[in-house]
């Protein structure tokens, strides 16, 4: 992969929509301003990742987790992001759990009728195996 980090940008349409919703009606954004915000957003991700990774390493972990990102926000002085991020994370976790259970129900139905009917809800912590619509979790970064 010969991409430089600066080349990795976020979709213009989404960035523009977020900007427009943050500003009052009737306010416009010049192309240059939108472009600058988009680049700033990419830099934000890179910087936050680096910061979060320091927390992971401090905790002797090889996997960057949500807590590391939250710690990074605090470190970067974006404490005001913490409350909304935690709420979003809760919603996200509930959704992922719902998806997981939907998959398990599907699997159960596919199983023969002879199965145990009174199976309790699983308590596995296999959230590492959760699949996104787009891609798998925790792909190895081959650097």
């Amino acid at each position, binding site marked *: 992969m010969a991409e430089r*980090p600066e080349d990795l940008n976020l979709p213009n349409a989404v960035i523009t929509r977020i900007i427009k919703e943050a500003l009052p009606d009737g306010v416009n954004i010049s192309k240059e301003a939108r472009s600058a915000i988009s680049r700033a957003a990419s830099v934000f991700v890179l910087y936050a990742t680096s910061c979060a990774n320091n927390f992971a390493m401090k905790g002797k972990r090889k996997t960057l987790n949500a807590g590391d990102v939250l710690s990074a926000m605090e470190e970067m002085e974006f404490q005001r992001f913490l409350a909304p991020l935690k709420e979003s994370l809760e919603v996200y976790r509930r959704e992922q759990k719902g998806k997981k259970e939907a998959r398990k129900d599907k699997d159960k139905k596919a199983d023969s009728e002879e199965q145990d009917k009174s199976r309790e809800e699983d308590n596995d912590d296999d959230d590492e195996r959760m699949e996104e619509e787009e891609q798998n979790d925790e792909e190895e970064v081959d650097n």
Partner: protein
Amino acid sequence: TGPARLARLPLARVKALVKADPDVTLASQEAVFVLARATELFVETIAKDAYVYAQQGKRKTLQRKDLDNAIEAIDEFAFLE
């Protein structure tokens, strides 16, 4: 955007940025999600902060210089300089 909103930025693109860091081994899906949400909040914040300068200039169009002014003036944006 409400606090409980799910990410609008595609997680795959955010993940690509995370992977660009040579020091990062693995990132959990949740981490990528929180990063995506944080980035959205960041975009909102910087847009609003820049807009203050447009207002001072009595303009209804946000311009590049408004961004530059906000970045220079606000400590949290120092990493962008």
